[in-house]
């Protein structure tokens, strides 16, 4: 298993680490048992993600994908952000080892989960917009 230089860069100096007080949307996916938890905070103004932060418990790939995914949606509209796929995150990171692909999925889901939370806070059912309730669990087959 070998990480790309890009993954190592984002792991060594992750962007957007932190929390947002009174965030407009917060999503947390993964669990301790599987060894990966990602929590994403969104600040949204006029459907634009004006700020985004994350906290991640997990491996190098988990940290790097959190960093990359948050960076990729910062300043984007929600609509655009929802188009972010795990494949795009992986490509931006110049690839991930096969056993680490699930981390990129986790990043995509954490973001969707945070957007879903934003809609819920607005009193809007996120399911038709996002395609899931934001409660999707990917990591462990429990």
């Amino acid at each position, binding site marked *: 298993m070998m990480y790309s230089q890009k993954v*190592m860069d984002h792991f060594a100096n992750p962007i957007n680490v932190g929390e947002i007080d009174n965030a407009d949307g917060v999503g947390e996916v993964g669990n301790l048992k599987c060894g990966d938890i990602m929590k994403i905070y969104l600040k949204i103004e006029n459907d634009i993600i004006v700020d985004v932060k994350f906290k991640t*418990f997990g491996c190098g790939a*988990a940290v790097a994908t959190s960093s990359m995914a948050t960076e990729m949606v910062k300043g984007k509209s929600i609509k655009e952000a929802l188009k972010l796929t795990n494949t795009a995150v992986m490509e931006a990171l110049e690839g991930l080892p096969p056993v680490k692909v699930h981390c990129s999925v986790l990043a995509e889901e954490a973001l969707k989960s945070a957007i879903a939370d934003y809609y819920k806070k607005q009193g809007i059912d996120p399911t038709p917009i996002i395609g899931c309730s934001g409660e999707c669990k990917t990591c462990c087959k429990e």
Partner: protein
Amino acid sequence: MERFVYADNAATTPVAEKVANEMMPFLTKYYGNASSLYSIGRDSRKAIMESREKVASLIKAQPAEIIFTGSGTEADNMALKGIMHSKRAKGKHLITSSIEHHAILHTAKTLEKEGFEVTYLPVDKDGLILIDELKAAIRPDTALVSIMMANNEIGTIEPIAEIGAICRDAGVLFHTDAVQAAGHISIDVNEMKIDLLSLSGHKMNAPKGIGALYIRKGVMINPIIDGGGQERNLRSGTENTAGIVALGVAAAEAESHMQENITRLTAMRDRLIEGVLKIPYCHLTGHPKKRLPGTASFVIEAIEGESLVLLLDLNGICGSTGSACSTGSLDPSHVLTGIGLSHDIAHGSLRLTLGVQNNEEDVDYILEKLPQVVERLRSMSPVWDAQKNCPSGLKV
């Protein structure tokens, strides 16, 4: 990077300079095939003979009881398959432990597929074999007991002499995987009543790709590699003279500096453990006293092992982890779960293993950097936020 500290000597060790220097001529100068009649063949043969004496001496065996192999893994495979196959008619039961290295566990699985029966003994929270369970597990058709001398992840040293005595009394052969122990703690195959013992060069400052199996005189065993009949017909293939010479030199070095190394490493290790345990919510794994001189192993709550190892590496420190992420599977190491750790906590495992080339400054450096690295990872961990509000910490 201010310093480079290699603290993963249980994974592999650098080849000692003396070892490298003494092996080199056997690559380029004394390259003769040890089976050849002419003088440079005889030089190889003689060097192999001397090396066999040195390896035997390290574990108080006879030279003729040492078979050189291509790795510790091969020695383990040969011990288990070779004995079970040779004793197939008499007994089809093998006893081992649940915290063995995969070289034992996966070989046992293969034997199960072939129709043999295997009992995997549990261990206590410190990683010690439960002696009563062993006694209870021995059956009339038990052919072999294989229990590791020291565990590679948590450093726990098993009560080998006691196990040896039980096996000898029961008339059952006893193999021990001493890959982590050989060269590091003193071993006497006679006192400990060991019938077979595996060791590996690269865990004791010899190169990778050379190992040895001690087979007590009189023990019948099948080879797993057939061919030209080298190594008393038990392990065929042109002898790896340079590797064998290197293992001999390393064995002699280990033997002659054994006590001083143990004293020095134990003191360093204890200082390291003491320092690391000052990190909040950090716990020692393995037996507090009965552990390898160089092995310090921990679980650190609210962080994940792979990222810890990677971040330590960025600070010039090499360590390892049994976290699921590092194993490439969804499960953390079987050793950590074997001693009863939950998945939740096993993810945060860290192993730091000191070797002869380490010094006190290395320990200082680790003790300076590790808390910073843990702090940094915790600062970006959502688990740590929860942790902080739960003063009792997670459960170990």
